[in-house]
């Protein structure tokens, strides 16, 4: 089982604890784990695309180069289905196909989860409901499902490359 899948499983476990007995800590950790499940799913795919797996550890180090804020911007750029170019990326970054519903959904959920993760980890004033975790974990599961469809698409390599190098494409 990959780290991403383990994190999703962990998020699922925490989110599905008895809602009458669960705690803010459980809910917050569920939301955080849901985000990181998606983050590591995409990070592993990025690394697999841009880095060989030998020598051992090189690909894992590549994942460390990813930046959450930059990934957020890329996710925003890809969040409109049917668009023929990714908003805010340079005009000469060509998408082979219009953005699919699946990719737009992945991008949209990535943004929502990252924002929720930040609130869950740092906003101590916020009172979460057990449903918040269940709903967000379900969204993370949706990303995993949609990625199975999308990863073979013509746009997937562009999306993944943008996650890593997109910030330098305007140079």
């Amino acid at each position, binding site marked *: 089982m990959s780290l991403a899948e383990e994190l999703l499983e962990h998020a699922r476990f925490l989110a599905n604890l008895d*809602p*009458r007995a669960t705690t803010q800590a459980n809910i917050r950790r569920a939301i955080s784990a849901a985000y990181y499940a998606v983050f590591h799913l995409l990070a592993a795919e990025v690394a697999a695309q841009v880095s060989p797996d030998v020598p051992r550890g090189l690909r894992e180090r590549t994942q460390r180069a990813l930046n959450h*804020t930059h990934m*957020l911007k890329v996710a*925003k750029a890809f*969040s*409109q*289905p049917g668009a023929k170019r990714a908003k805010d990326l340079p005009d000469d970054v060509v998408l082979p196909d219009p953005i699919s519903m699946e990719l*737009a*959904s992945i991008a*949209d959920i990535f*943004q*929502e989860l*990252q*924002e*929720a993760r*930040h*609130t869950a980890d*740092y906003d101590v004033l916020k009172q979460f*409901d057990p*449903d*918040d975790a*269940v*709903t967000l974990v*379900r*969204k993370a599961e*949706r990303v995993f499902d949609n990625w199975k469809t999308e990863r073979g698409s013509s746009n997937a390599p562009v999306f993944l490359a943008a996650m890593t190098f997109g910030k330098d494409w305007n140079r």
Partner: protein
Amino acid sequence: MANLNFDPVVGEEVRILGRAGLFKIVRVDRPDVRIAPPNARDIAAGALGLGTVDLQIVGSDSVVQDVPWALLQFDDEARPVRRAIEWLSTDPDNLKHPSYIVDYEIEAKNDHAGNPSIFVRFLVDPDFFYENGRPSQENIDALNEFTFEVKQILLGLGLERWIYVQTGVARRTLDVAS
């Protein structure tokens, strides 16, 4: 998005381009002819069509008559989103507005990364959303699908601000009289 419009409405507070002060709309005259279907970015720029409004200066009885819509400036940056969500709550065709959504909140603020954003939060009534003490997978999927569709509609407004569409549970206030 037929029937979605951003026309000024009575009661809204506005400013007038080139004039100091805050005004409240007390009368709206709609144009017989519209220049073009306005998009949200035009609204922010004040280009609203050929109608006019009468405005009352806030804190005074003075009324300014026949002010063209094009001169109106709205302080509320979430206004286009607010109007779109109001429109959605009328359950327009092709969008299933789940019955368990009982309220919503709209807030303009920065997201955690500092991006100017608008947050929409739909609140669900647990009595209708839950089955056997928990929300069903089916209801969660329907809710997530709905928020995704709403997000697409809001992105279509072409606003500069980032859009977040979230969900939460509606909290009831206890009725102490009963």
